[in-house]
């Protein structure tokens, strides 16, 4: 059981000593019970920090923003940034470090274990509350305790947890500078890739019916891309409007942009966008689930990423974000990689 005071104390201490220039964490948000990301830069703000089941956000996104901002104002980081990271978030940070996005010493990871639970799925909760609103939620062992107008309501976490947390194999940030909470790796809430396995049991036709429905609905708002820490490219290959013009941009670069897809949000282009995204996240996605949570039209994006994650794991023995010095999925190979599909 994590005591929030420990996290606050750590943040306060480091900011006081000037060991970090900021702490990226969660604070109480302005909308109901939900937490929101915060960037605190002074010891006095440490008491804002919270840790509860609504801390969904993968804060490593803000490490990416931070680096981009520094690059924009042409400044070097004077001190590291501390960040509160769950298991999946910490793995994202590892992938970013694998890709040299920042160095290990640039980041101080305040690890938080999800222990026996994980984060909340708002939609699941809404069903349980029957229209009532919760103003607060807290971890309590295997339960989540909600504060509602009618008083306290206790629910087993398993009933209202996000699917990805139920399927999570390693609910613990292995890469950390300091960590709070117990390592409950090996807890078995639901089999890994359970939802994926159920989906795949359907035939080709049924799968296409499912996906064509969702591909039709995608509005290409790019929320999934915006919220993903791995989508840190300045220019997205499948959305060339975000063209980076830097001092190094040549006329040739400008002339050689490829319009892999058109901008209109129609099915064929949506498919190409979402599949490209899945390919580009293969071996990099750590299943933080933010893309799916951010999607305004509820495209089950996680399923695509999950599929790639499982193939990487089962075919190539690959775990995303396992170690900073480890290989990347598509730039490496093993002699024993499957080849029986090749004629």
């Amino acid at each position: 059981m994590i005591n929030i005071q420990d996290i606050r104390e750590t943040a306060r201490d480091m900011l006081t000593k000037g060991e970090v220039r900021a702490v990226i964490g969660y604070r109480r948000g302005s909308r109901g019970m939900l937490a929101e990301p915060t960037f605190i830069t002074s010891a006095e703000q440490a008491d804002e920090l919270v840790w509860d089941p609504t801390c969904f956000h993968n804060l490593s996104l803000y490490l990416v923003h931070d680096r981009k901002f520094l690059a924009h104002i042409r400044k070097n980081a004077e001190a590291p940034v501390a960040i509160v990271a769950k298991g999946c978030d910490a793995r994202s940070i590892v992938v970013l470090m694998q890709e040299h996005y920042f160095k290990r010493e640039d980041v101080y990871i305040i690890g938080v274990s999800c222990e026996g639970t994980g984060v909340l799925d708002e939609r699941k909760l809404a069903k349980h509350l029957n229209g009532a609103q919760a103003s607060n939620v807290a971890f309590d062992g295997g339960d989540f305790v909600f504060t509602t107008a009618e008083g306290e309501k206790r629910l087993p976490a398993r009933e209202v947890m996000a699917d990805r947390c139920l399927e999570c194999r390693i609910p613990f940030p292995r890469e950390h500078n300091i960590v709070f909470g117990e390592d409950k790796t090996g807890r078995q809430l639901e089999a890994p890739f359970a939802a994926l396995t159920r989906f795949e049991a359907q035939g080709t036709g049924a799968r296409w019916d499912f996906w064509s429905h969702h591909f039709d609905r995608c509005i290409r708002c790019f929320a999934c891309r915006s919220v993903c820490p791995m989508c840190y490219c300045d220019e997205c290959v499948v959305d060339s409007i975000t063209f980076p013009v830097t001092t190094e941009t040549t006329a040739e670069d400008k002339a050689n942009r490829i319009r892999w897809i058109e901008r209109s949000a129609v099915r064929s282009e949506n498919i190409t966008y979402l599949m490209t995204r899945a390919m580009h996240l293969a071996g990099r996605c750590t299943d933080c689930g933010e893309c799916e949570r951010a999607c305004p039209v509820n495209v089950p994006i996680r399923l695509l990423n999950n599929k790639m994650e499982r193939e990487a794991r089962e075919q190539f023995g690959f775990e995303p974000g396992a170690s900073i010095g480890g290989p990347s999925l598509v730039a490496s190979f093993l002699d024993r990689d499957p080849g029986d599909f090749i004629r």
Partner: protein
Amino acid sequence: MTKKRTGVFVCHCGTNIAATVDVAKVAKEMAGENTVAFTQEYVYMCSEPGQESVVQAIKDNKLDSVVVTCCSPNLHEKTFRDNAERAGINNFTCEIANIREQCSWVHNDKAKGTEKAIKISRSVVRRVNRNQALDAVAVNVTRRAMVIGGGIAGIQAALDIANAGIEVVLVEKQATIGGRMLQLSETFPTLDCSQCVLSPKMVEVKRHPKIKLMTYSDVQEVTGSVGNFRVKVHKRSTFVDPDKCKICDHCTVVCPVVVPNEYELNLTARRAIYIPYAQAIPASFTLDEDACLGLNPVVCGKCKDVCEAGAIDYDMRSQTVVEDVGAIVVATGFDLYDQANMQELGGGKIEDVLDGLQFERLCSASGATQGHVLRPSDHKEPKEVVFIQCVGSRDPAKHCAYCSKICCMYTAKHARLYKKHVPDGRAYVFYIDIRSGGKGYEEFVQRTMEDDDTLYLRGRVSKLYRHNGKVRVLGTDTLTGQNVEIDADMVVLALAMVPSKGTTEIAKVLKIGRDKDGFMAEAHPKLRPVESVTGGIYLAGAAQAPKDIPETVAQAGAAAAKVIALLSQATLNRSPLIAKVRRSHCTGCGMCVEACPFIAIRLEGGKAVVNEALCEGCGSCSATCLRAAIDVKNVTQLQIYEMIEACLAV
């Protein structure tokens, strides 16, 4: 970007293309392309007038790029690029659209063939639209060569190269050079003594100031590319100092270990310390580490005790030597097809059934029987000998599909040698066809049949087995339709030639292709028969295909000429089709660095940087980069994208 002015030149190739592709329609369609300023068709574009007309058209129409729709780029890409250069435009703005091998020759429906030819041509026109003028990258050349394999092919190639003043490293796996030819008794069609012809060349190799001879050595690793290879050679220890060894033979007398002598095809035995042949080069004994009791004076040490020259050193260690060379000749030779595969002929388990090489050793004055033809089982002179041709050859269902080419001739030679050694003996030859093309070859076979009274039986042998101390041969004479049964004293099998053991491995090390039969593949069957697909690596001898000695020597000379031509240049032009980073898009993630097979990319200041001297232009980086931030010049992702579009345009 100003609009390109591309010229499209459609070749009829006589009727090779024109018969199944409507060339006029291809030209007309290409004329409709936005960037095409000129089109022309011609019956033979690669002919002198054809090439001239291209030059003229480039000049007259101020073309800046060229597409020739014709045969495979492997044939005439260079022709037309050189031609473009003659017309004053950059050669890398010229591309070939292959509408012959990949279209007209494989489709006989003219409408469909034409449609495909248009798609292919259009895709290449679109590609050329974005081709950049590039200058070849000049690299210095290492003026040294390596020859792998010390048989007649390797010896000839090494001597020819060395005589041109270029240093050669000759690497041989065995303890002596000489290869298969050194095992032969006499050679067809002149019946001159094989060793008498070969030995002087071997000595010349040894004495040649420009040849560095490395026997008992294996090529382990090859890096680099044409002009600058770096080769790691593993030199196994012989435990005998060749400079001190006086070949006095005292060591073999005392050596207590007896093992089969592989140089005599196991017809005799040798000691753990041995010299392969009296004529071996280097003239030195070799201590077989696997057979020796332990390289330890406590265990045995007899040879070391008896060696007055002090040549034996048990502490000698194998070593790995790195050699930098500019070109490599592969002359790794052949082996005989394994008799064990020939179950119907006893699978190598029937006594007195020999292979051709073993028979050579029986005939050889320096061989197992000092030149007397004696059958192995009882050392008696065989009075009836059956020679069987095409054993394992020309049998696509069960064995090798190809003709081993030399068996007709050497079997005739064997029959003649046999009659010379055993004048009252009788020789039978089972054959399918007699293939005796070659200077003096047909006459040689005829003499064998007529003068030596050899009985040629056209047919296959179905079975061999021991019967009353002889080998019973069951066969058919297809000319008379009779079954034939011969009780032979000895049977000699003309086994198929196969690539020598280790060919697979060495081909992998060298990154050169092999053909469907496992022989080293030449770059083009007619026009580039001594070049491998990889630049700077050449082929000689039976490693490339079955061939006899004169052909081998000729090919070795040709390979040497190629090497000399290559290494006589001060610098080489490397292909400029190498990777280029779009720095504005590179985030420095390092995936390209990880994917590059040539360690040609590094991160510098957070961006990928390509080492132009190491990049081979494979494009692994480009397909791995998530940001399309790295591309191979003139094969960019944008170009491929536009080619895809062209292929699918209705």
